[in-house]
């Protein structure tokens, strides 16, 4: 195995920030139930509420607008499922609006929940994206109407990093009388997020993408917005999410956003520099490649590239043998048999989707690591292409003859 270890898969998950780890270890003895009135409970309660304030401050919200949940997926499920509820008796006023709009490049937790809602009688419309992964505001305008109750558009895409103009989308959505949700799991802690400026009604956060622990997320619900819990049976989180609070996780999330406030401002430029160097290095040393995602409106940390004639899982595993961790849009690596739905939605053909690699950097990534990747990658691609039926320099495919 290689001596050098490079973790370029920060969009999948991130290591704990040392400060988060320190705080969580220090709190390991805190076992009280925040709902208990005795000293154990009061200690836990104080820490949970402290973390809530930190999370609220981080996104410009009021602390009463923050609900702690088990994951980003849970937050997204809650919002979409709430909408079904909003169409029935229990949330007055929204009964007639039985259509939701989302995009073709959402995380599976939004897409699959939407499909499930469609089976339950909700009408779901999917926005297309252009080759860079941007939605078309004119198409949105055409879809909006009296029947639309909720629009859910992710702020930053996990695979290609493309950022959407949530502020403009929110404005349009509200003008039509619908509610606006954004899955900000990949955006939060990487680009500034202010819920008032964005004008959203719901916003999803996850801790483990920002150097916090797994199993904890938060959902912002704007004051006065119709709401119905996904998990019932307890008074926790003001009755909006039952289940004894994950106190350690909440504490970790609180510390994680605090550290983001300190580190984020200087980080973006550094990451952008790393990404440009990586991009340039790949471009200069490897032929027949295509970059996916938006050239400018994109996360500074994320670079997605397709290699002609090469299958992504093979690249991933050869890189793994060299100590480099990345992701691929190839079906072979996912356990399913379809390549990335995001890349297909941007119009990339299936072969190039199978041959895509996502590099996602983070706070610990260095120029030395980028240079190592640039050194290691070209011979790997060369080697796979040398054994490929699909690659002949210049892009001709042996298969087509």
């Amino acid at each position, binding site marked *: 195995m290689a001596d050098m270890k490079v973790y370029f898969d920060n969009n999948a998950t991130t290591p704990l920030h040392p400060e988060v780890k320190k705080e969580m270890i220090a709190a390991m003895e805190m076992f009280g139930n925040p709902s208990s009135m005795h000293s154990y409970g009061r200690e836990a309660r104080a820490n949970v509420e402290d973390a809530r304030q930190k999370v609220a401050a981080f996104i410009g919200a009021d602390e009463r607008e923050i609900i702690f949940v088990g994951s980003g997926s849970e937050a997204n499920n809650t919002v979409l499922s709430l909408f079904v509820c909003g169409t029935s008796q229990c949330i007055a006023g929204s009964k007639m609006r039985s259509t939701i709009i989302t995009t073709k490049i959402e995380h599976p937790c939004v897409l699959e929940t939407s499909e499930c809602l469609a089976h339950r009688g909700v009408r779901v419309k999917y926005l297309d994206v252009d080759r860079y992964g941007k939605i078309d505001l004119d198409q949105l305008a055409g879809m909006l109407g009296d029947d639309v109750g909720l629009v859910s558009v992710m702020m930053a895409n996990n695979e290609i990093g493309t950022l959407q103009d949530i502020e403009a989308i929110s404005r349009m959505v509200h003008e039509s009388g619908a509610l606006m949700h954004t899955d900000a799991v990949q955006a939060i802690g990487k680009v500034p997020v202010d819920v008032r400026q964005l004008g959203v009604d719901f916003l999803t956060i996850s801790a483990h993408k920002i150097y916090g622990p797994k199993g904890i997320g938060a959902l912002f619900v704007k004051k006065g917005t119709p709401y119905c819990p996904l998990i019932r049976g307890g008074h926790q989180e003001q009755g909006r999410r039952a289940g004894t609070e994950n106190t350690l996780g909440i504490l970790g999330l609180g510390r994680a956003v605090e550290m983001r406030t300190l580190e984020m401002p200087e980080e973006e430029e550094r990451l952008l520099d790393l990404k440009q160097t990586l991009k340039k290095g790949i471009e200069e040393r490897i032929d027949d490649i295509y970059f996916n995602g938006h050239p400018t409106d994109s996360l500074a940390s994320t670079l997605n590239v397709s290699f002609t004639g090469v*299958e992504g899982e093979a690249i991933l595993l050869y890189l793994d043998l060299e100590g480099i961790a990345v992701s691929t849009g190839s079906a072979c690596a996912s356990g399913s048999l379809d390549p990335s739905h995001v890349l297909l939605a941007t119009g990339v053909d*299936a072969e190039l989707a199978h041959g895509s690699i996502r590099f996602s950097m983070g706070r610990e990534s260095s120029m030395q690591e980028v240079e190592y990747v640039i050194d290691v990658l070209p011979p790997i691609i060369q080697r796979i292409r040398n054994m490929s039926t699909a690659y002949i320099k210049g892009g001709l495919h042996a298969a087509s003859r």
Partner: protein
Amino acid sequence: MLQAGEWAYSETLKEHFMNPKNILQGENTDDFDGVGMEGNLQCGDQMMVVIKVDKEKDIITDCQWKTYGCASAIASTSVLSEMVKGRTLDAAFHISPKEVAQELGGLPDHKIHCSVLGDKALRAAINNYYTRNGKEDKVKQEQAKVICQCMSITDLDIEDAVLEGARTYFELQERTKLGTVCGQCKDEAELLLEKFKHIHFGA
């Protein structure tokens, strides 16, 4: 706390992935006596196998290959190319994906379909050799007709599934995984489904 395994698949697979054997260098296949190509890029894997044959004895003396495919496809074809050398055409023709997978030290279920292309391409190469050498009579058609290329499901597999209880396309997919990749075989599979239901159950 458990430590991560050194590798995603078996050690043998890793060895063949790291050092694949018998890769065809360049594109020239003129020196070979038989050429076979299977799979398609949209499904994410494609395989080419080329063979040299001792024409006196009908024994494979060399087997080389190229693939557009994942680690399992690379490793399984590497193993296969070693296995067939020195075998008669007839013996090589009957190597099954199961034998290849065993030689590799096992494959996860969802990777089986990645490993079947190698032996399919080998059979195509052997048939190609027969055709080129005026031995058309020896060309062995696959006894069963492959309906779903991606998952390598034949009409006989469909018949079996019907006999075992599949009555709808969905049930057929559940049993065989047919049509779960590119989906292009759906129409043909549905016709066969109806046909076998009719033959066996009068439905």
